[in-house]
């Protein structure tokens, strides 16, 4: 170590991210707020075109969804659809994600779930299912095999994500799930 006049304080690594809730708004400003993320339009279109009037939104990053304010409910019991865009659930173990989906479906039979592919299986557990080699197909197959009594529709666009697809503004893998 070089000699320095400064006192040194050594701390455990701590998260230096400070933008979580505003991440989308910061990325919007990269373009002078002149664009709209296609996936956000997809969420809005899904709600509007399916005539869903009441949405319970579990969010993290502020998405600024362009829907009437009275669309959003304060409690899940009032909702026709649960919309999950919070990324934290993607950091549950896979078994925990499945358990959480069932908890949501007990309260509301329609779920629009956004998962961040890069966090899945965060704790490196062996998944005892026959899954496709291609990761995006494997995610869908894992959900469909794990939720056999549910309809799982993959609404995602397939692409390799090289960190340029705004995944931390809005997670990339979108699924509509309802109990059969």
């Amino acid at each position: 170590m070089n000699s320095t006049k400064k006192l040194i304080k050594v701390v455990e690594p701590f998260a230096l991210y400070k933008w979580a809730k505003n991440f989308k708004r910061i990325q919007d400003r990269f373009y002078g707020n002149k664009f709209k993320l296609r996936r956000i339009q997809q969420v809005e279109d899904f709600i509007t075109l399916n005539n869903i009037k009441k949405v319970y939104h579990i969010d993290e990053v502020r998405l600024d969804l362009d829907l009437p304010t009275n669309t959003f409910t304060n409690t899940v019991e009032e909702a026709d659809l649960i919309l999950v865009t919070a990324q934290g659930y993607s950091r549950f173990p896979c078994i925990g994600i499945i358990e959480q989906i069932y908890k949501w479906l007990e309260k509301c039979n329609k779920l629009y779930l956004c998962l961040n592919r890069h966090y899945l299986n965060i704790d490196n557990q062996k998944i005892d299912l026959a899954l496709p080699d291609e990761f995006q197909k494997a995610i869908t197959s894992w959900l469909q095999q794990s939720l056999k009594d549910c309809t799982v529709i993959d609404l995602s666009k397939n692409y390799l994500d090289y960190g340029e697809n705004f995944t931390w503004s809005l997670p990339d893998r979108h699924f509509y799930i309802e109990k059969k």
Partner: protein
Amino acid sequence: MKKLIENFSDFPMLENDQHHYIRYRMGRLKHQLWLYNRKRNEATIDTHDKFVLDNLQKGKTCIFGSAGYYLEDFISDLVVIEQWPIVKKFYPKAQIINDRSEISKHNGRIFDNFVVVNNRGDIWCELSVVEKHIGSYVKAMKTGCLFFYSFRDTQIVGWNRLKHDHYNYFYDFALHIEKTYHLNLLWHDIKFAEKTKDGAGNYDIMENPDTTNGNIKFVFEYKSKTKNIK
């Protein structure tokens, strides 16, 4: 109606210093420590910084793509290399390169220590591309150079997180690097989140350990294997 966008390249980004600075900062987390420490008599560093500092050998040290100026007070012969020209505005001593091949072209094979800590520019690619990046760094290393390399598993592309054993995937990569570049693996630390339910039956939403430095950490020695890592 606003244009719909899916990828950074779908629409031209703004081109001004503020924009470049924000994008640089978002990807170089240790810049925050530099901002914090430069006006204080006490410097805060984390345990991984201390680990690197404790294990550096005498001689010239390169820190690439990692806001390395935050360690300037502690490293006597430091060369900071970045790929963002905006860095020159607040740290004029930085070398700015476009392509990694310029590191050895500009400096020669002169470094005794080469450090890359969670460089956003190194990740968001397949491991085969990381391998090529490392090939550029090796060309600037003297025999015996220590190479500290760390990154995050969640920002590596082109693997199936539901099928591959994560530990083996990254450890095998280190072994492949050993063979490819005469970089002997001296030390490694590969950690993933451990998830158990709390008393209420819920899981935490924490990320893998050490999002700042990366949860995949290696130390290699170039063309020799003589050093003990503490």
